[in-house]
């Protein structure tokens, strides 16, 4: 179970950036005096067995929120709880409980798929036997045995993404965070990822799924959280969000809820 309450993250501009911004008309309401409020007020929760869709336009603050959840960034204020444990106070606990996958998180190109996955298993303190057993299970689930010995730099995009999923779940985390995992994937590879997420529905895992593909949200997510300009604009059941417009379409609901002006 994940609970995020009144989360905020502010970045201070460095001297060069501050000088560049000085005197210019402020186009983004998140810009402050020498600072940028990337996340101003975000709150949501995700229960065990639930898939939560994290929506929002580019630059809304989704990735910053997820980076705070994964302990890579420290929140300026607010609270993130995983099973009641405060992430900022117990980062090691959080790191053990979270499996994180984004389009940006990569693999070590000169290690084989198996070596990559095993390495992260070791980093999470698993024994060799545990690693072997879990690799066997995950590789079967994701149909990865045929390229398990291949070096990561020889993999196709789809293979790479499956290997990244295996890397993210090797330590059997209770919270899975997928940050735009199907971006750049072909239909078949994307389906593999989506099927994998689907398989966790109803399990003991909490899954946060950030995406721009609304059809994926419609298919997978029990609830959605819409973030725009660093704030939660909607948090609730997917059907309720879609029903907020006359057409009942998630697409229309999304467009109606977000600031349509692109911020510079």
């Amino acid at each position: 179970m994940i609970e995020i309450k009144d989360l905020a993250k502010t970045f201070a501009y460095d001297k060069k950036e501050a000088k560049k911004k000085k005197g210019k008309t402020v186009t983004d309401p998140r810009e402050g005096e020498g600072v940028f409020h990337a996340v101003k007020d975000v709150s949501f929760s995700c229960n065990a067995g639930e898939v939560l869709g994290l929506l929002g336009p580019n630059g809304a603050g989704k990735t910053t929120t997820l980076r705070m959840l994964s302990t890579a960034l420290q929140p300026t204020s607010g609270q993130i709880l995983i099973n009641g444990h405060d992430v900022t106070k117990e980062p090691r606990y959080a790191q053990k409980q979270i499996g994180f996958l984004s389009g940006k998180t990569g693999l070590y190109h000169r290690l084989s798929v198996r070596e990559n996955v095993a390495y992260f298993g070791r980093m999470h303190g698993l024994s060799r036997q545990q690693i072997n057993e879990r690799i066997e299970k995950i590789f079967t689930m994701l149909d990865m045995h045929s390229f398990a010995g291949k070096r990561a730099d020889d993999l196709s995009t789809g293979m790479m993404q499956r290997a990244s999923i295996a890397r993210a779940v090797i330590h059997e985390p209770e919270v899975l965070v997928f940050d735009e995992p199907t971006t750049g994937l072909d239909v078949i590879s994307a389906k593999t990822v989506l099927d994998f997420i689907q398989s966790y529905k109803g399990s003991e895992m909490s899954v946060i799924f950030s995406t721009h593909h609304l059809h994926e949200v419609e298919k997978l997510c029990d609830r959605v959280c819409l973030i725009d300009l660093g704030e939660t604009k909607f948090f609730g059941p997917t059907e309720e969000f879609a029903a907020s417009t006359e057409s009942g379409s998630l697409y229309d609901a999304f467009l109606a809820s977000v600031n349509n002006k692109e911020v510079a």
Partner: protein
Amino acid sequence: MWLVYKKELLEILRDKKTLIFSILLPTLIFPVLFFAIGKFTASKTEEAENKEIKVAFVNAVTLPGFADLFTREKGFIKVELESDDYKSAILDKKVDYIFEVPEGVNLPADSKKQEVLKVYSKESTRLDQIMGQRVDEVVDAFNNTQRMELGRNFNLTTDNVKAFNKPILIEENNFASQREKTGEFAGPLLAYLLIALAVSGAMYPALELGVGEKERGTLETLLLTPMSKGQIVMAKFGVIFTASFFTVVVTLLSYLFWVWIFSFAFEPSGVAADADSLTGKQSGGGLDFLSNISSLDLLLVAVLLVPLTSIFASIMLSASIYAKNMKEAQAYMSPIFMIGFMPVIVAFVPGMELNMKTAMIPVTNVALAMKDLIKGTVDYGLITILLISTAVLAGGLLYWTTVFFKKEKVLFRS
């Protein structure tokens, strides 16, 4: 930490570029190229020393014995000029040197005055200069006979002539040992080599483990594991340090190996002599010179590299982590290399020596100490001070790198 260290090292070793730049290039390709160039230079020099020089004389009858001296000397051949066009004859390589004896010139021993001859040639290359030296040697021999003859004509003894020739002759009695004299030259060379290798050896792994990880997205993955940032930095630093130190040690060993091999393979006048000239020994290869240096001194040279390599590993890792991309990181590396090398150049400015003050100057102190260790004139007390000051700096920089690595602004700089 050990887990990250082993993984990073494995990745570095699996990288063909690392193997080529850190191992193959300094251990095999550079020495072979170095010795091949040495061999080529030596053979060209030998060719110039043995090349038959074509000499022509104009109106040499007034200087009896002058032309004969050349014809008697091995490697000279007297040729007859076909025309008065000296320039064409020389440029067409029909003749190398033309000596023209102007009208009225006689043997100096007879005229009792300095006579002036004209010589025509084309000396533009180093090889031409070597041939020119051979010609000068013959002219010097002729001058010597004339000098003695003049002395006799003026009723001077041989000692009188010597006095005229060189009023004061300095007989050198240098108490500096051969090791000191050779070390004065070889020490800086070794320091340059080792420090350059240490810096360049750290550069590629630093780029790979810092900005390389950032670009591939593996750094963010690594940060999400239960490993602390401090441990991650230490592991990365360890790999860069290992790679740098390994490059230095392997290159040195390969250099010694190749010197040994080439000492056997070639005549002393050839490549081995060139290799010897680097270490200042007349025969027996560079290993003979090194045999004069105690194991403790050699060990200290290696020990000095530990804090030095740490300094560069920390600076380069910080720059690499700070950079947004590989291009930016590479732009930082060249100034680091240049600035890092300045203190080495300063160390070899005449008058610079290892003392209490210079022992505190980073990099300069190591270069000076290496020179003194090779020369055998080192003050071991100063080495201790140097090691402490450099280790403190290296430790400080490593701590700073760790702090730097923990900054969100640095890790997620975009």
